[in-house]
């Protein structure tokens, strides 16, 4: 090769570098809030996906008829008032003058359109809108709509607060966008959608015609940073102002950094080890109780979660309404566990398996449980599966024990129990194949009673029953852990993970 060849080669290489570097990144100015999300949104159409990554964006763009306040109470939002007509039906009075991001005014027809569409295409939100009776949806005038359920359901109002099934869409915007609506969302929220660089970031800007308190910060950029340690690094280096889902290993780093803040709130999830209650020996309640008592959940939580959250005490997370504060739990007592196993006819123990997906915390839980159960004579084999295969296998109901989580994004105790413990749900979410007529009766009554002392008593009795019956070992209640820069003010972490960015401002 001659020297001129080398020069040409070098020039070409430089041109490549220039071409590749043509796109420039905008510096984050003080009127831009940069947030690190765990993964990119799948869609911004609330009827397509209820996943948390998408909900983190949708909660800024959309609003619901009702919402929950800081205490978890249901309060008006787009509906400024409502009244109950009968056990199944409600009338909602909409706020007047509320604008969508495309300039259209919110009307009752939009609400009717939203819920008809949700029922028709919202297969992923069936647990929210499945009980809404489409025939009951009636537009009385531009700002009044009647809507109800097929069967009496006290959790209906709580369902309307959900950022998935409850988001109100603009009929015109949805029809205009057609199949592309998921990338062209239009809501009434404080921020409106600007741009989506798939896999990288979503940009929102303040909606100046918002009916409520306008956000202090003009622009929001939500970046998808899947590697959890990178979210912490970006927070430390100033690349982001807020980082969601800080891993346990990084908590101390943030706490010890004077330029950062850590915000922790108990969430509404339960990690559990379920039994196949239709299969011996787990069909015997003494065996289930024995296994529960053989596990030292305090130590297990410390080892796996390193101080995040803590042991769970029942099916309803402590933050949820009607959590039984006087719950009597099955305490760690390996000697009593051995006695129960002997009474059940297994004095020498038995062999069993724990199934789990490939999530690290669950594998750790299984490993520790294996070691603890060995001390009471139960030999456990752990089977780790990929998520898709795991769900398929669980649906066959051939498992012994399995590890899973359950989250209650709807602020109602019915959602925390009905789908997973009611015998009618054995072909659905009740993977433990648990069937107890008393529990069924309590759940059936609980979902129809209006809120009050009687309903509270039902759910407290139910929690006591489920703890004693032990269809699950209630392993862990989690926390939402968010890191922010010191100059970020007004950020309030939501227990369900629907963090609202429009209350945030920068400290001068």
């Amino acid at each position, binding site marked *: 090769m001659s020297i001129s060849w080398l020069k040409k080669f070098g020039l070409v290489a430089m041109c*490549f570098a220039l071409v590749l*570097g043509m796109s420039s990144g905008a510096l984050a100015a003080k009127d831009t809030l940069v947030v690190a999300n765990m993964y990119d949104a799948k869609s911004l159409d609330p009827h397509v996906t209820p996943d948390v990554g998408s909900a983190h964006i949708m909660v800024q763009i959309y609003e619901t008829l009702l919402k929950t306040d800081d205490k978890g109470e249901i309060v008006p939002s787009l509906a400024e008032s409502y009244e109950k007509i009968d056990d199944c039906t409600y009338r909602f009075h909409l706020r007047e003058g509320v604008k969508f991001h495309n300039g259209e005014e919110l009307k009752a027809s939009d609400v009717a359109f939203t819920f008809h569409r949700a029922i028709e295409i919202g297969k992923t939100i069936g647990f929210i809108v499945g009980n809404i009776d489409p025939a009951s949806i009636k537009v009385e005038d531009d700002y009044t709509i009647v809507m109800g359920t097929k069967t009496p359901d006290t959790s209906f109002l709580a369902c309307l607060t959900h950022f998935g099934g409850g988001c109100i869409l603009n009929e015109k915007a949805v029809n205009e966008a057609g199949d592309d609506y998921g990338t062209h969302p239009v809501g009434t929220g404080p921020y409106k959608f600007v741009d989506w660089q798939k896999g990288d970031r979503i940009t929102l800007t303040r909606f100046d015609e918002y009916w409520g308190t306008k956000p202090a910060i003009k622009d929001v950029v939500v*970046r998808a940073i899947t590697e959890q340690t990178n979210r912490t690094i970006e927070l430390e*280096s100033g690349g982001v102002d807020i980082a969601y889902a800080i891993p346990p290993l990084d908590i101390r780093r943030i706490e010890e950094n004077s330029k950062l803040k850590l915000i922790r709130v108990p969430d509404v999830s339960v990690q559990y080890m379920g039994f196949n209650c239709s299969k011996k020996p787990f069909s015997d309640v003494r065996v289930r109780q024995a296994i529960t008592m053989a596990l030292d959940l305090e130590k297990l939580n410390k080892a796996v979660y390193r101080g995040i959250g803590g042991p769970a005490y029942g099916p309803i997370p402590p933050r949820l309404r009607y959590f039984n504060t006087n719950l009597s739990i099955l305490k760690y007592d390996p000697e009593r566990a051995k006695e129960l196993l002997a009474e059940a006819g297994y004095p020498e123990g038995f062999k069993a398996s724990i199934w789990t997906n490939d999530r690290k915390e669950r594998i750790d839980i299984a490993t520790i449980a294996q070691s603890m159960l060995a001390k009471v004579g139960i030999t456990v084999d752990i089977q780790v599966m990929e998520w898709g295969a795991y769900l*398929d296998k669980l649906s066959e109901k051939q498992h012994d024990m399995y590890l899973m989580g359950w989250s209650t994004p709807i602020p109602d105790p019915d959602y925390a129990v009905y789908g997973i413990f009611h015998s009618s749900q054995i072909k659905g*979410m009740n993977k433990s194949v648990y069937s107890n007529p008393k529990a069924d009766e309590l759940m059936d009554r609980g979902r129809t009673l209006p809120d009050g002392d009687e309903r509270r008593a039902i759910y407290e009795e139910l929690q006591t029953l489920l703890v004693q019956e032990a269809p699950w070992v209630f392993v862990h209640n989690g926390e939402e852990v968010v890191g922010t820069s010191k100059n970020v003010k007004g950020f309030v972490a939501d227990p369900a993970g629907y963090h609202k960015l429009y209350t945030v401002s920068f400290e001068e």
Partner: protein
Amino acid sequence: MWKYVFRRLLYLIPTVIGVTFIVFLLLFITPGDPARMILGDQATEEAVADLREEMGLNDPFLAQYGRYLYNAVFHFDIGRSYVTHAPVTQEIKAAFPATLKLATLAVVLAVVLGIPVGIFSAIKQYSILDNLAMVFALVGISMPVFWLGLLLILLFSVHLGWLPASGFDSFKYMIMPAVTLCTASLAVISRMTRSSMLEVVRQDYIRTARAKGQKERVVVWHHALGNALIPIVTIIGIQFGSLLGGAVLTESIFSVPGVGRLMVEAIKMRDYPVVQGGVLYIAILCSLVNLLVDILYAYIDPRIKSQYS
């Protein structure tokens, strides 16, 4: 020459069809239900069954594959994502630029550094620098990509604060992922260059060129490298083709919105149309890169050009 190129483009068709058939079959027999993945772990069996029916997943394998192939060939429609409902072409178009930029930069770095290192190692065989270069090559091939990436982040983002840890917004975001990716390729290219040059420099025509008083620089870069280029270009093509398929570990560590991550997420979610579309894209790209390499052969070695004709 053009006949050869046209013939190779025609060969692309059965190649791509064969690849899509194998992938479709693998997806079909893999455990995991797309309907259940879409609806989540809170879905009822009834809802899953309904969705499966709606998506045509209960149809026989050949019916499903036939439908896919018909739409792809006659309507240029490779479907919509089961998860996002966006067209598959749109999903891949969004991911491709990042992968193309990253792969190109990584290969350019590997070539610009690897070839001179390989040449030097061959010319100064068994010298200290040759040994150092080959040890580096061995480390480069052996080092796990994710570990190297994390080390670079630790040094340049955390301790020095020179480069951003993640994202893909401008050139500075590309540096660390490209360096991470290029290391293995650089090692392979330098070793292949060394090996190929060692074969060539021992040839009689090289001895003749030196004997005739030709400058060493000309002997090495013109006579030797020119004849050693064929295997080097082959390996560069293989490396580039494989990088264009997406480097999922690097993309995950640095949050690069590329094809690798797209494919892994699609596989996890059993998003069959995106997996199929992604594989189609990779198969076509790899075939085109191979064709480009074969065309380059003709320009490097005129004897090959006459064979094509």
